[in-house]
């Protein structure tokens, strides 16, 4: 009681002295989003009453409120997830409450945050906390963070806390499956051009940075395959990064390492993990070229050694491949493989200049992209005279740094031409060749890889200033034909295989209205019962920062992926409403 009255006096004091200022300088803002779904039975695509399980309604919403007073900001986010089996969210996300709150003071030199923290060190290899609403993903760190910028171009950060794990409590008395270790990290970055006067306007640019992150979990011993293993209490990881630029060239790289971290995810091996990311880019007005490589070896880094899937990641492994947004290729999105992968990505963007034979009046935009991801090579190790691979309690395997594994996980080659023909017509064409290792990416043992060619075409006709019609056509040729023989028990691997045809027709009245109808038709599916149409209709209204959209129809099974993290959405049939706004 005494504390409360003390607080009241304190607040009143501030208000009395600064009352006028308070009102003038205070700023309240926020945002809101709600997605509501109603699902129904649809025998055509195999959705029965049992699948819906009496939970026809799904609703997912958040409201965020933020208060700002000069350099001080505080806010919270209320979340409500009423998930259903049809929504494809992890069932643990179900619940409601204030999931996130924070208070920050930052004057540009010193910054302090208490509460739920989102941050990233470098590319995030050893630390990244973030949220993706569409995936139901949030690994915010509840704790404290300090940022200090002693002089121009130098940033030092330190943080300490515990990650969010769905709705699990943050105290000591949570079940083992919900416990999380403490995460502690420091990061420093030095931008030479900003801090050294003679380099301010130099053609040569350089930034260097380093981070150190450690997690602490209670000591424990685990019995794996009948053998007692001692788990490390502290697991350290560190990374160094470098960014160099000279004129039109940029080179950036980051290397990370993690010491022994046996976990459920890596089958309790004690091998150190490592990761390398490097990019070389050249760019000038109208031309951009970038080559990237990466290598990941045993880099799953989680704050609970028992966690699997996408849970409780401390580090982030960026996928490098192109993100497809068109409906057919995006059914086969790559998900990063933290246990090991080697990838390369090459991209060219070029604009054929205006007023040339090929460029026409507006120029023609070309894009080429190639990416490939393979497994790493793993050699067995000798344990007590026996050669073994990936045995719990051992160092697992050795992996030559530059050797590429035989198994290809993903390959994508695509080419795009985009052309504004005149003020009325706009045309985009794209060709995509995909290789998708379904067995690895979707964890379907024995599934055949997808080798597909996809053609995409889009034409926009602008009727007048506000009214436009857009038509999108897509076709996918799969290596699995309609007469393909299917091994018994593998039927579920073929829900999206075989040839597809898709179209989308949209009418828009800028800036407010849009209506569209679309169909995806899996006419070439090897299982006759799966040759289904997925027809959807959408209608929406936008007023300034508010958007309301209603859509209904069939949703095909697929992966929703954001930044390499994916969520599987089952096929469903129903109607959905989305409202989003901010203030």
């Amino acid at each position, binding site marked *: 009681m005494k*504390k409360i009255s003390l*607080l009241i006096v304190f607040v009143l004091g*501030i208000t009395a002295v600064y009352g006028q200022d308070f009102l003038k*300088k205070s*700023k309240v*803002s*926020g*945002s809101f989003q709600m997605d509501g779904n109603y699902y129904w039975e649809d025998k055509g695509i195999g959705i029965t009453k049992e699948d819906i399980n009496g939970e026809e309604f799904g609703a997912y919403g958040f409201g*965020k409120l*933020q208060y*700002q*007073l*000069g*350099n*001080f900001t*505080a806010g919270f986010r209320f979340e409500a997830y009423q998930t259903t089996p049809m929504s494809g969210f992890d069932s643990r996300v179900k619940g409601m409450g204030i999931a996130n709150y924070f208070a920050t*003071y930052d004057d*540009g030199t010193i910054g302090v945050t*208490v509460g739920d923290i*989102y941050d*990233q060190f470098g*590319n*995030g290899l050893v630390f*990244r906390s*973030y949220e993706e609403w569409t995936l139901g993903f949030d690994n915010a760190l509840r704790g404290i963070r300090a940022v200090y910028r002693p002089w121009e171009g130098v940033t030092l950060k330190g943080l300490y806390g515990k990650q969010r794990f769905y709705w699990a409590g943050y105290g000591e008395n949570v079940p083992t499956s919900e416990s999380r270790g403490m995460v502690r990290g420091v990061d420093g970055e030095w*931008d030479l*051009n900003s801090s050294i006067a003679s380099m301010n306007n130099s053609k040569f*640019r350089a*930034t260097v940075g380093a981070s150190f992150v450690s997690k602490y979990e209670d000591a424990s011993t685990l019995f794996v395959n009948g053998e007692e293993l001692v788990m490390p209490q502290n697991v350290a990881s560190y990374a160094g990064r470098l*960014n160099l*630029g000279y004129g039109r060239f*940029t080179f950036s790289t980051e290397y990370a390492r993690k010491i022994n971290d046996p976990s459920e995810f890596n089958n309790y091996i004690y091998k150190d993990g490592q990761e390398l990311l490097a990019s070389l*880019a050249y*760019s000038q*007005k*109208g*031309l*951009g070229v970038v080559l990237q490589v990466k290598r990941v070896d045993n880099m799953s880094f989680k704050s609970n050694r028992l966690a699997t899937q996408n849970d409780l990641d401390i580090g*982030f492994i*960026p996928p*490098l491949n192109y*993100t497809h947004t068109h409906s057919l290729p995006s059914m086969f999105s790559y998900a990063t493989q933290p246990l090991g992968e080697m990838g390369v990505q090459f991209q060219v*963007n*070029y*604009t054929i200049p205006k007023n040339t034979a090929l460029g026409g009046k*507006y*120029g023609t*935009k070309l*894009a080429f992209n190639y990416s490939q991801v393979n497994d790493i090579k793993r050699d067995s190790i000798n344990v007590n005279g026996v050669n073994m691979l990936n045995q719990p309690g051992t160092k697992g395997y050795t992996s030559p740094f530059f050797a590429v594994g035989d198994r290809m996980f993903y390959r994508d080659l695509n080419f795009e031409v*985009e052309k*504004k023909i005149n003020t009325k017509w706009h045309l985009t064409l794209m060709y995509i060749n995909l290789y998708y290792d379904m067995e690895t990416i979707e964890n379907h043992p024995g599934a055949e890889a997808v080798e597909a060619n996809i053609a995409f075409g889009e034409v926009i006709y*602008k009727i007048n200033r506000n009214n*436009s019609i857009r038509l999108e056509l897509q076709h996918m040729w799969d290596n699995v034909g309609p007469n393909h023989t299917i091994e018994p028990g593998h039927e579920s691997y073929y829900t999206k295989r075989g040839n597809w045809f898709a179209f989308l027709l949209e009418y828009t009245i800028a*800036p407010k209205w849009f209506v569209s109808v679309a169909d995806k038709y899996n006419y070439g599916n090897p299982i006759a019962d799966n040759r289904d149409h997925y027809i959807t209709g959408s209608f929406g209204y*936008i007023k*300034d*920062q508010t*958007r309301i959209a209603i859509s209904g129809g069939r949703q095909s099974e697929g992966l929703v992926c954001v*930044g390499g993290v994916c969520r599987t959405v089952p096929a469903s049939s129903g109607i959905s409403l989305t409202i989003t706004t*901010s203030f």
Partner: protein
Amino acid sequence: MKKSLAFLLFGLMFFGLNAQNKSDLPNITLKDLDGQSINIAELSNDGKPFVMTFWATWCGPCVKEHNALSDVYDDWVEETGVKIFSVSIDDARSTAKIKPFVDGKGWPFEILLDVNKELARAMNVNNPPHTFLFDGDGKIVWQHTGYLDGGEEDLYQEILKISK
């Protein structure tokens, strides 16, 4: 523990009060395409209006909007002196690709990298594209989510209203 936390909170607020904060721009530092740190609170266009638009390479409507803005940008600058700050919310997956992507498309805007959506969160951006129009003092006068073909014209009408 609770008490000291509450005091810390009020202490922070007290400090906050002493700062000058006339604009709607938060005190957040992002990098530009050359790796230089830019304090968002210090963004300005010499007293003229400016636009801040959030986008991502994986967002189709965003790329369309940028292409459309790029086509008319020279005329807009000539007529109103407006400036466009374009904030990419792509994560580390694309950080190294943004510069060649933007140059390859020939976009003339000043690009900022919001790799962990820090600015997007502070500005209450739920989904890209999301476009803000600021007056010469850095106050938000208009905002819009989504992009439909021809939508840039409505932004231009709003710019004309505040640039005399």
